């Protein structure tokens, strides 16, 4: 099959970028989207041209390193996929594809399609953990956790931190990402001790890092590769209000 690729090229965060067109032919439907970029990069390398920088690592949808907005959709046309799981069978022969980086003020472009998502790490640093040190733990079965609670905590914990929610949100909010971690830990008895500090610290960090506010559009949950649910944002708001009511000050 043949595809026309219009790919965002940008030297660094300080320079202006632009779309550059590449014609691809002899592609197979079974190729993954990133394998197509591999082929393109090989042809650029032989010609001595700078290759297209894009993020990827595990290529099985779990590390969260791959990004890309394809034809306006974070992680491409299939819902709840990552870019690395997207295959060319999702496109038609002769299609033109617009390939851009995840765009958000909190995700500055490093080069081409690579962006810096350190801002998400900083939110976790603010409080997205349980402050138990190695060696402190009691016997694992000492605290029974209802099967359904554990499963529900897993649903939130499954977030891969890719940032597609941010790239999709019209406000560039990371609410779904933050709420997934807050919900994961608040649901579990181990995480309840610090729930009040955690939610406040994380939400403050979210705002300090320049992410926008959530206006409950729900676009984030439509693209999330791990299908993190919108109700986690409700849980986050509940936790936040609960924390204010329970303020120890």
């Amino acid at each position: 099959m043949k595809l026309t690729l219009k790919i965002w090229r940008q030297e660094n965060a300080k320079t202006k970028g632009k779309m550059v067109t590449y014609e691809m032919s002899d592609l197979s439907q079974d190729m993954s989207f990133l394998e197509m970029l591999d082929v393109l990069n090989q042809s650029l390398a032989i010609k001595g041209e700078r290759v297209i920088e894009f993020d990827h690592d595990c290529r099985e949808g779990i590390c969260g390193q791959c990004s890309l907005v394809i034809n306006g959709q974070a992680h491409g046309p299939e819902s709840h996929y990552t870019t690395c799981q997207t295959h060319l069978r999702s496109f038609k022969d002769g299609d033109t594809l617009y390939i851009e980086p995840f765009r958000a003020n909190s995700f500055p472009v490093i080069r081409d399609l690579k962006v810096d998502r350190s801002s998400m790490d900083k939110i976790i640093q603010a409080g997205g953990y349980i402050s138990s040190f190695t060696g402190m733990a009691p016997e694992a079965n000492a605290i029974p956790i209802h099967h359904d609670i554990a499963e529900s905590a897993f649903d939130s914990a499954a977030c891969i931190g890719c940032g597609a929610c941010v790239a999709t949100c019209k406000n560039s909010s990371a609410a779904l990402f933050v709420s997934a971690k807050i919900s994961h830990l608040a649901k579990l008895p181990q995480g309840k001790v610090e729930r009040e500090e955690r939610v406040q610290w994380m939400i403050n960090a979210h705002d300090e890092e320049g992410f926008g506010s959530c206006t409950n559009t729900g676009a984030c949950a439509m693209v999330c590769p791990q299908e993190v649910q919108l109700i986690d944002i409700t849980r986050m708001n509940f936790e936040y209000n609960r924390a204010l009511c329970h303020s120890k000050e």
Partner: protein
Amino acid sequence: MALNAKIPEGPLKDKWQNYLAKTHIVNPANRKKLDIIVVGGGLSGGGAAASLAELGYNVKVFFFQDSARRSHSVAAQGGVNAAKNYKNDGDNVYRMFYDTIKGGDFRSREANVYRMSEVSVDLIDHMVAQGVPFGREYSGYLSNRSFGGVLVSRTFYARGQTGQQLLMATYQAMMKQVKVGTLKQYKRHEILDIVIVNGKARGIIARDLDTGKIERHAAHAVVFGTGGFGKIFYLSTLAMNSNGSANWRAHKKGAYFANPSWTQIHPTALPQAGEHQSKLTLMSESLRNDGRIWVPKKKDETRAPGDIPDEDRDYYLERRYPAFGNLVPRDVASRAAKERMDAGHGVGPLKNAVYLDFKTAIEKLGVDTIRERYGNLFTMYEKITAINAYKEPMKISPAAHFSMGGLWVDYELQTSIPGLFAVGEANFADHGANRLGANSLLQASVDGNFILPNTISNYLSNEIRAGKISTDTPEFEEAEKAVKEQVEKLLAIKGTMPVDKIHRRLGKIMFKEVAMSRNEKGLKWAIEEIKKLRKEFWENVAVSGDQNGPNSELEKAGRLADYLEIAELMAVDALNRKESCGAHFREDFQTEDGEAMRDDKNFMYSSAWEWENGDNWKLHKEPLEFTEVKPTVRSYK
């Protein structure tokens, strides 16, 4: 240097406690004067970084990903083993130790394996406390499943994303220490060399992958949690950027490389679909709990799998290994699949796969139970292949997966370079010639969280008077210069062969002759081919762009340059070992019914290779002494 594994005195079951009782530790006030560099932010490196930072050392952690949460531990699916005996099925530390020793075909170090089994119990407690949402029974207590090579259920799991969940816990523990200020992270940094001063590891040379800047970093000790090098096969279950470079650079500076040829070929990955393919996605071994593996009895079977009646199917694992059936260890399962495919029974368009069928399990347990157990794996399968595995069997195929070999370490996890430690997959001792499923997450985590923090102090207790280590020394100068020269050399070639193409060719050589089945002629051929390919690489590789910023081709080229040397040592190691054991199957050493034939008289040792200038290695042998177990023929029949 003679090998000294420093195995503590006393009976096997007391060794670790004896060690802990006598080892030197560092006064809390002195810990903040000691700097430690950790390379790798995954379960082993990240666990070490977090635990050492909690103790109060100054820790710097380096990784090439943009966040430690993306380290490849994230991709481990099935679970983590621990001898909790929650199932009352007769499990205990000794049984777990024995299963692991036997699984490794009596080629691992007894004391290390016992310690790993012993500490496994604490690890589950630790991970639960960190918030890992392990699977639970309706009573609220932790649930277990079974894995290949064992007869008990000792595997803890978080659906099919156990690695991700353990890594999140570890990553969060790291982030907590970043906030406290005892841990500093250097993301998107790749290690290009290690610096030795007066015989001790004193720092690293790293490249900032965003700016291209070459940096010097010094410390009192260096810890490698750098993972495995299975990506050498190009097509593998590893992440695209996983590499063997840090280990190899350390090897060239004096660290011995142990059992480099022992690569686990995982039996249940997705088959290659075409020439463009970059990755073979793993399907967790846990699927073999409920899935049955078969191929058509007829060679040129044209019927769809669903139309083939039971009498025309060959459930070859159940046929050959009735005791363990579909749950034989990985090396056995992979080899059996290869045997069937070589005999012309492979399925799929390229005849390079076997069926993994859930029909029986779905009939017995219902589709909902199967979905709860493996839902995400079925979804992942469908995303990649567009096939619904609830309705028709999966097609699976063996793929390069885990490096049992790695940097040689003693009982303290210290390499043959004083001050350089290796944890997790980067080292060697625990898995012998074949790793059991769900022991990888275990080893990585216990090395990082529980073992290294207790052994590194023995070394660091002698460093409290060393003062700050300077990077302004001739040793750093020289190492930096060599790194810069290599970068410039790679950019100056301006050839016509893309890095990936050369890597793919290397992978083909390795998969053909240095993978599931080896022989003398093939290995000698492989060594010649690797040398030729290496020459071609240095004459004709195409690396475009420059070094002053991100350049993924340059990164890949540097890693491939090292792979082209590691490959040769792997073949040299396989050639030296004239026996079959675990994943190392020599066609010239097999029984009449095609099983591995060990030679305990001549090869009851770990091979530790010392780099000698040029492409020459000196072999050191660490004899393996078994005090508690008697090596037997490993049978799963």
